[in-house]
């Protein structure tokens, strides 16, 4: 992955709002990932329209998010195979 690639959740992964616990979740075969509010804010932007640089910039401006935290979460999703490749 390079800085200019746009980021998108893998086809197998679905981002959904859980009405029971009122939290966002990423659901994929055999697993689910319950997201914190800040993780959900990142995940909701993984729609294939932004590069990592744009993503960290937007989240810093909108929420004061630390770019290092955003990168760490995106990397973790990538390691789990949850980003399109």
């Amino acid at each position: 992955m390079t800085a200019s690639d746009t980021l998108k959740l893998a086809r197998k992964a679905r981002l959904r709002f859980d009405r029971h616990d009122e939290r966002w979740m990423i659901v994929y075969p055999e697993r689910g990932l319950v997201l914190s509010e800040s993780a959900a804010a990142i995940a909701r932007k993984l729609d294939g329209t932004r590069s990592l640089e744009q993503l960290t910039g937007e989240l810093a401006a909108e929420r004061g998010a630390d770019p290092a935290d955003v990168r760490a979460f995106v990397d973790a999703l990538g390691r789990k195979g949850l980003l399109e490749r």
Partner: protein
Amino acid sequence: MTPRPYTLVAELTYRCPLACPYCSNPLDHAQYGKSELDEVTWRRVLDEAEELGVVQAHFTGGEPLARKDLEALVEHAHRLGLYTNLVTSGVPLSRERLEALARAGLDHVQVSVQSASRARGDAVAGASAHEQKLRAMRWVKELGLPLTMNVVLHAANIDDIDALVELAEEMSADRLELANAQYVTWALANRDALLPARSQMDSAAGRARHHQARLAGRMDVLFVKPDWFGTTPKACMDGWARRFVHVAPDGRVLPCHAATTISSLRFESVRARSLEEIWKHSDALLAFRGEAWMPDPCRSCDRREIDFGGCRCQAFALTGRADAVDPVCSLSPHRHIVDEALEASRAPSRWLHRGR
């Protein structure tokens, strides 16, 4: 507090055109044909499951494609916001039917493959199925659906990890599940023909690790060494009636696909009570939920929140008591049963196919 189930395993039917000798269905699966739930009841089960907290529905069997209402049920689950997964042999499937399932909102398809070779695959399945499975996997990818290729591993195919991975790559699978047979129901009946030697298992685990590293970021390769080859129990179903709720073709609510083998338990059907009532109050689901049932040394074990006491079906099958320590555990007084099976000669024995 009653735990929240996240996954519904909807076993729509035990009917199947294949006859694999390690089938996870009950030995008496043929008895269920006339007692299958109808579409209206399955829709209610999906509604009630979502209400309970389920976010994911696996449509499985038997062969779920044997049900003509599969598309309608997938669509219903999709409308409820559930992640839908079709667990299929790929037989009988047409491209048109898969397109209809995709339109209904299907999120993921898992296709089982018995071997990397047609002749050996068909010998395991007891049917001419391998070529059709390859076609089915290609359609899945052509329609843009995520694909898991699943292989149940046993003595006769576990030496073929390299060829199986190669096939999964050729099919552009997103995931490859190399799933060792679980020795309950049919696989237990065929254990002497199916159980690999320890040297085979070690070598397969090594090859799987090699491919996991090589394919990292491109294809997920899952390989879990089976509990028999270790000394601690598996976290079976993440705990009894905790995260998974199974509904059998006849409507009985189970903690796992094999639980009806525990003949001392009586499982209740969604025909008589709601899924919620059964999940919260059924004696069979309460029997091993939590820790109150645990024998020594489980009840004071540091691992009790990791493995939840292991597999109750296995304890029952091997010791005759569902509340016994899982015999896989090195602390079980029955561990010798597992060791003796592992040491038994793998002389060329023949397996018995399940009936169709």
